[in-house]
């Protein structure tokens, strides 16, 4: 797999233009008085949060070749860390997000050690078990003083600073956007540099990478840590925007939805992470209407649940578009340029 996009000219211009559009979207709120606008803003926040979580997972799976089905655990650790810091230690939200990232880096780094010995299916298996065990762990009574046990933790949405004429939801959208931009920028540069090349070398052939003098163990655990930190910060953002964390929202299903986002957007593609994040939220929000449409179109007797749609889509993508939507777009562009060159 060539990583041509990172070295292409004008990629920076495209990216800047894209982010400017994303930044301009909440301003519609000043001219539109649609009552559902706040809801759209919340959807936008969720999309960015999922995009960050998928980014973390993509760094690990797409660029380092370590399969994780347990990233819901790091998302949960990030969400709980932020919530506990904000509620019990009165840490401001802007500090809680990076702190949650640091906590998750530690957790991911530690989990990365046993993961070193595991490959492919076995790593998937160990992380799968982690994802299933986490909700139970979060509910345990020995930590219920902080985590609130089954009830979870309620927190307050931060108020926008008084010098900005923004509503709470507009403000939170910008918080998510700034964190997302910062993390995408960091990962973009990480991947273009020495560390990124080392990560990809390990993915493509671990033994050859080791022979070339790359400390594979160090890079693999570090990647696990960074990946967990990024996903953990997404968790912190979700705690802040939803203003509530509960153990049962961090199930295996959450991990699977990250995986869906990853596969839909495209494995080892940074723009794909944003596509994937948006896709997860769109399907979750419109699963009822998709189900209604399918019931009409195929005269089904039952509601079609979102998970059946996710699952079917995963299968279809693996068969027909293994590089995801971003890969599909790139393939179409390559085809077009070849056609135009011939004429």
């Amino acid at each position, binding site marked *: 797999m060539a990583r041509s996009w990172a070295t292409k000219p004008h990629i920076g211009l495209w990216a800047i233009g894209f982010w400017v559009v994303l930044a301009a979207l909440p301003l519609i709120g000043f001219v539109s008085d649609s009552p559902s606008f706040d809801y759209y803003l919340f959807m936008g926040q969720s999309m960015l949060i999922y995009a960050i979580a998928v980014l973390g997972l993509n760094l690990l799976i797409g660029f380092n070749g370590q*399969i994780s089905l347990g990233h819901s655990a790091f998302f949960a650790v990030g969400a709980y860390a932020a919530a506990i810091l904000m509620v019990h230690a009165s840490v401001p939200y802007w500090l809680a997000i990076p702190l949650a990232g640091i906590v998750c880096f530690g957790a991911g780094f530690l989990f990365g050690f046993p993961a070193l010995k*595991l490959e492919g299916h*076995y790593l998937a298996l160990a992380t799968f*078990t982690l994802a299933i*065990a986490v909700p139970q762990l979060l509910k*345990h009574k020995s930590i219920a003083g902080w985590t609130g046990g089954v009830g979870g933790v309620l927190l307050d949405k931060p108020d926008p600073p008084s010098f900005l004429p923004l509503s709470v939801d507009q403000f939170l959208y910008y918080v998510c956007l700034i964190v997302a931009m910062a993390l995408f920028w960091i990962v973009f540069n990480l991947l273009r540099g020495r560390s990124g090349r080392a990560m990809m070398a390990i993915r493509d052939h671990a033994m050859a990478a080791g022979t070339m003098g790359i400390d594979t163990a160090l890079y693999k655990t570090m990647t696990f840590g960074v990946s967990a930190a990024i996903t953990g910060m997404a968790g912190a953002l979700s705690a802040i925007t939803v203003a509530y964390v509960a153990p049962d929202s961090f199930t295996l299903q959450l991990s699977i939805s990250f995986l869906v986002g990853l596969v839909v957007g495209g494995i080892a593609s940074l723009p794909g992470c944003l596509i994937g994040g948006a896709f997860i939220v769109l399907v979750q929000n419109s699963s009822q209407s998709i189900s209604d449409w399918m019931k009409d179109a195929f005269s089904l007797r*039952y509601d079609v649940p979102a998970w*059946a749609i996710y*699952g079917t889509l995963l*299968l279809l993508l693996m068969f027909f578009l293994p590089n995801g939507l971003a890969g599909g777009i790139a393939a179409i562009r390559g085809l077009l340029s070849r056609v135009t060159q011939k004429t």
Partner: protein
Amino acid sequence: MEFFIQQIVAGLTNGAIYACVALGLVMIYVSTDHINFAQGEMAMFATFLAWAMIDAGVPYWVAFGLTIMVAFFGGLFIQRVILKPLENAPVLALVVCFIALLSIFNAIAGMIWSFTIKQFPSPFPSRDLFGNGLVSAQQLGVVAVTLVMLGLLTVFFRYTTLGLAMRAAAQNASSARLMGVRVSWMLALGWGLASGIGAIAGMLVAPIVFLDPNMMAGILVYGFAGALVGGIANPLGAVAGGFIVGVLENIVGSYVIGNELKLSFALVMVIGVLLLKPAGLFGRVIVRRV
């Protein structure tokens, strides 16, 4: 002491079910080197089919047999249609496929039969067997079914041509192909068997935990743990591992960590075995040439 023995017996009963799940996983692992994350949901789906049949008035053992047949052909079908084209695909694509199957089975079961829990009948009476409150007929029945199944499988793999062909295909695909074994179909047969064994596990566990689309998630994890403890490439080891995990889980759960952390115990076991003894207790260490 009586409590301790009760815990062991209950552990053996659970262990029998974990052993079935583990056996299904080993069946697929041995023939294709894949770990089937959808094993639990396939079993759950088959159990729902059995429930629907029994609900419609079919006698229990008829429904039991029919469900195993349907599960067998279902597994065969999944391997032929979905996994065969991906035989040479990277691991990630396969893991994604298994996760997709897991989601689809879970969602469809919920769609057809709803997520409310249902009672599943047990063919064995729950009465006390020896009058001292230690072993119930239900528990003995579960263990007996597992052991009978294990015996049949052993006979199948030792003494039938088909069983031998399957083992040959799993051990050395290219040599087996030269000997005229249709290797690809042997893999499909492995899937069918795994699916059938899974269905048995589902029907045995459903009376204990009640039937709902999410019933197998935890059990699958214990099945994984059992398969790993015994050695994931060794059917007999997997069964022993399942029993070991069942007993340990119950003892540790009631004396050391309490019931809330049982799943975390499974996590610790999975990671512990993978780290300390990846081949399992009864497995062979595989040396790879590079």
